[in-house]
């Protein structure tokens, strides 16, 4: 059994083997909670118990299943919600639909991966405006979430929301617009530093004449530059060929796998290519189909090792939805979505085409104060219910009415770093003489201001 202390010392052949329980690293509630909050948005006690009855690999498999009665019923409800929000005409309110999915969708990994791709192919509704187009793009990302990356890139290159966001719609023969071409290589597929400015200019020519007509993609041959272009050392003509050329670059598997490493396992440090190689090789040999590589990553020794505990700063959405799922909360999602915006994660409004940087970038003085206030408002909101009942009924049904029992339970389920003795003292001492309901609510609000509340 190997204990990981430094990432640069990890043997790549060891890291990505399926994780097995051991004396130092048992398959217990704490570790199951880690897996379920990284691959999804956190879990209830009963979901944790269910996960403990099977192997991590079996849990991951289940999170990928997109069929079943529960899912079908959920999809009907979700589609109704989407339709009414799109009819409202405001892209901002579309985030209610997505938060609802994250909170209730039985297959959490699908939503988690869709969130990953939303940050990857970041498109902002402040420029696209049309909520219907934002919804269509979200469906495209969900459809390919752990499927064929090539099909996703081809889809996104003709996606109306993306075309609007990166100005491709005004990409004309006489004066190619470089915006989409540059980001296709820099942010979507290869990474900065692996191509030249000439490649950007040549690539932009390939996409001339890619337009939108009545909210749909249309190829306009009159605006297309049909000459030969030299992209990354290959002579090509069409935009489709250009995408395939970009995707054949040897850096593509590493670029995507590295980003997934940071998304699922740890914000820092950045892994070496050597460490990522087994995953990148699998991704490449699967013809850029994601599923096998993602399963391997999530079920791996490294992912479930003690090393990966507390290696990630929770995103605002992960923090809020995670707490809500753990404590079976429902609330006013419109309010929640506004407050998430204030702490830096407005769904459908990423900060720029690079998406959310994640990690330490989530944290500053304002967002820390804002996160604590967000939890305060959520816990105080009249609309907030716990398993459809009151907070005290829920505490009783969970046998958590004793403050110490509650703090122990919360620590295991939600925190990657346990509550220290002095923190526990502060939490307990400020509570003398208060009603049970108020005492527990205040404990949660105070915990939201703890440094480790922000860690996954």
């Amino acid at each position, binding site marked *: 059994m190997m204990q990981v*202390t*430094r990432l640069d010392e990890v043997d790549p052949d060891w890291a990505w083997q399926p994780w097995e329980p051991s004396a130092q690293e048992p398959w217990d509630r704490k570790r199951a909670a880690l897996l379920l909050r990284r691959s999804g948005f956190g879990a209830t006690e009963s979901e944790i118990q269910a996960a403990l009855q099977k192997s991590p690999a079996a849990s991951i498999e289940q999170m990928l299943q997109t069929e079943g009665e529960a899912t079908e019923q959920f999809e009907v409800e979700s589609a109704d919600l989407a339709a009414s929000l799109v009819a409202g005409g405001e892209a901002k309110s579309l985030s209610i639909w997505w938060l609802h999915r994250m909170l209730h969708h039985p297959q959490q990994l699908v939503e988690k991966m869709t969130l990953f791709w939303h940050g990857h192919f970041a498109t902002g509704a402040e420029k696209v405006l049309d909520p219907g187009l934002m919804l269509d793009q979200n469906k495209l990302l969900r459809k390919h979430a752990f499927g064929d990356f090539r099909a996703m890139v081809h889809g996104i290159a003709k996606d109306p929301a993306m075309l609007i966001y990166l*100005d491709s719609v*005004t*990409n*004309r*023969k006489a*004066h*190619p*617009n*470089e*915006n989409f071409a*540059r980001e296709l290589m*820099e942010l979507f597929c290869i990474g*900065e*530093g692996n191509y030249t*400015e000439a490649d950007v200019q040549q690539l932009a020519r390939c996409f001339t004449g890619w337009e939108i007509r009545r909210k749909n993609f249309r190829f306009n041959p009159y605006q297309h530059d049909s000459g030969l272009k030299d992209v990354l050392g290959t002579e090509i003509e069409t935009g489709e060929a250009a995408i395939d050329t970009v995707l054949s670059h040897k850096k593509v598997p590493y670029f995507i796998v590295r980003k997934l490493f940071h998304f699922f396992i740890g*914000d*820092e*440090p950045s892994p070496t290519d050597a460490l990522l190689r087994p995953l990148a090789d699998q991704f490449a040999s699967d013809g850029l189909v994601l599923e096998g590589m993602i399963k391997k990553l999530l079920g791996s020794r490294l992912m479930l090792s*003690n090393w990966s*505990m*507390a290696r*990630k*700063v929770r995103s605002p959405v992960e923090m809020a939805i995670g707490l809500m799922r753990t404590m079976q909360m429902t609330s006013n999602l419109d309010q929640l979505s506004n407050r998430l915006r*204030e702490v830096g994660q407005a769904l459908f409004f990423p900060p*720029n085409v*690079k998406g959310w*940087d994640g*990690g*330490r*970038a989530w944290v*500053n*003085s*304002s*967002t*820390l*104060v*804002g996160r*604590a*206030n967000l939890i*305060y*408002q959520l816990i105080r909101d009249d609309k907030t219910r716990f398993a459809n009942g009151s907070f005290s009924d829920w505490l009783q049904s969970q046998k958590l009415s004793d403050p110490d029992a509650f703090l122990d339970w919360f620590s295991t389920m939600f925190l990657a*770093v*346990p509550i*220290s*003795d*002095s*923190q526990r003292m*502060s*939490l307990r001492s*400020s509570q003398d003489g208060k009603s049970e309901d108020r005492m527990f609510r*205040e404990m949660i609000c*105070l*915990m939201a*201001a*703890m*440094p*480790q509340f922000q*860690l996954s």
Partner: protein
Amino acid sequence: MKRPSASRRQFLGGSLAASAGLAIGSPVPGPWMQALASDAVGGERILVVIQFSGGNDGLNTVIPYSNEEYRKARPKLAIPKNDVLKIDDELGLHPSLAGASKLLERGRFSIVQGVGYASPNRSHFESMDIWHSCRRKEERGTDGWLGRWIGSRASDKQTDSLGLHLGGDQQPLALAARGVQVPSIASVDQFRLKIADEGMSGNAMLSNKSTDTETKSDGDDLLGFLQASTEAAVAASERLEKALKTPDTQSEFPQTDLGEKLRVISRLILAGLSTRVYYITLDGFDTHSQQAVAHAGLLRHWSDALDAFVRRMERAGQADRVLVMTFSEFGRRVQENASEGTDHGAAAPVFFAGCSLPKPVIGELPSLTDLDDGDLKFHTDFRSVYATVVEQWFKDKSKQVLGESYPKINLL
């Protein structure tokens, strides 16, 4: 265990700090933790940085209105000769820049032409990181140039954080320092812990010196970072609340995001905060299409807010200790594109305002025909501009901040 110092206890409220077992030994800003100094307005020089994000079109900001090559390259976007606010026989300001033009006439505005760096990178993110860190990607560390300056002054007897970022966007790399956490504040109104309303403080939750915390061996750990950040946040929240208690009745700032930010900065300066670097951002300069209207609007926001800010400082007799620097990660291509916009370019002007600035224009406009892959060639390294700020404005050594020595420009 080290006890909090008397002044620190006073600052945090005695009972609280004593009972909470405040984070001891964390790498945090002593500055914020010291007792509050007097409220008299101090004498230290202040730098306000305004970042234009997206790549500002320098050629349509400082316009070579009598240059035929400019009109040839910009058939749709060229600003008509009669509309520019003329500086001399060759150059004029964009018609939206009336405020800046007035400042220029009073000797409080200056343009540094042709600023950039060798082998320009045309990625927004990469080029911005180069401006922030002064390093290329291969040798990039985790700190920025202002962060290094702040770090070099860490031993100052300082009441407040030396740097402050105002904005909902993420903290600029330029302000990142080792061992010091510079606060970033989205909105001063919401910058208060609600649990404080019930007599509780976030300070109570800071200590995490748990006996069972697993040992982390990969360099800086995230928990320590969060500990330091939380401590800085709580301290800054309390300080700002105090500083902004008295309303400012004399200000006439435009009702824009930038106007609001500069209004807050003016209030903090006049409230006597000893912060020396303020950092704010104006986004939207990535004008690949339909540039004319968007660019004019952005320039107007900037110029009107800047004018209001400098006038407020003048009225308070503080203008001569405030320098405002405005930059962007790159300029834009000389030739306009077919979308009535411009693509990513290279060299561009940097702007200064505030204190007395004797020369309106420093350096020549780069040639519009001798180009670097379609873009203007730089003649002044941006680090020369920074070196001038550090040496001549802050009166400090620039080599430790910038890594090397750079020639100074003739700014002040």
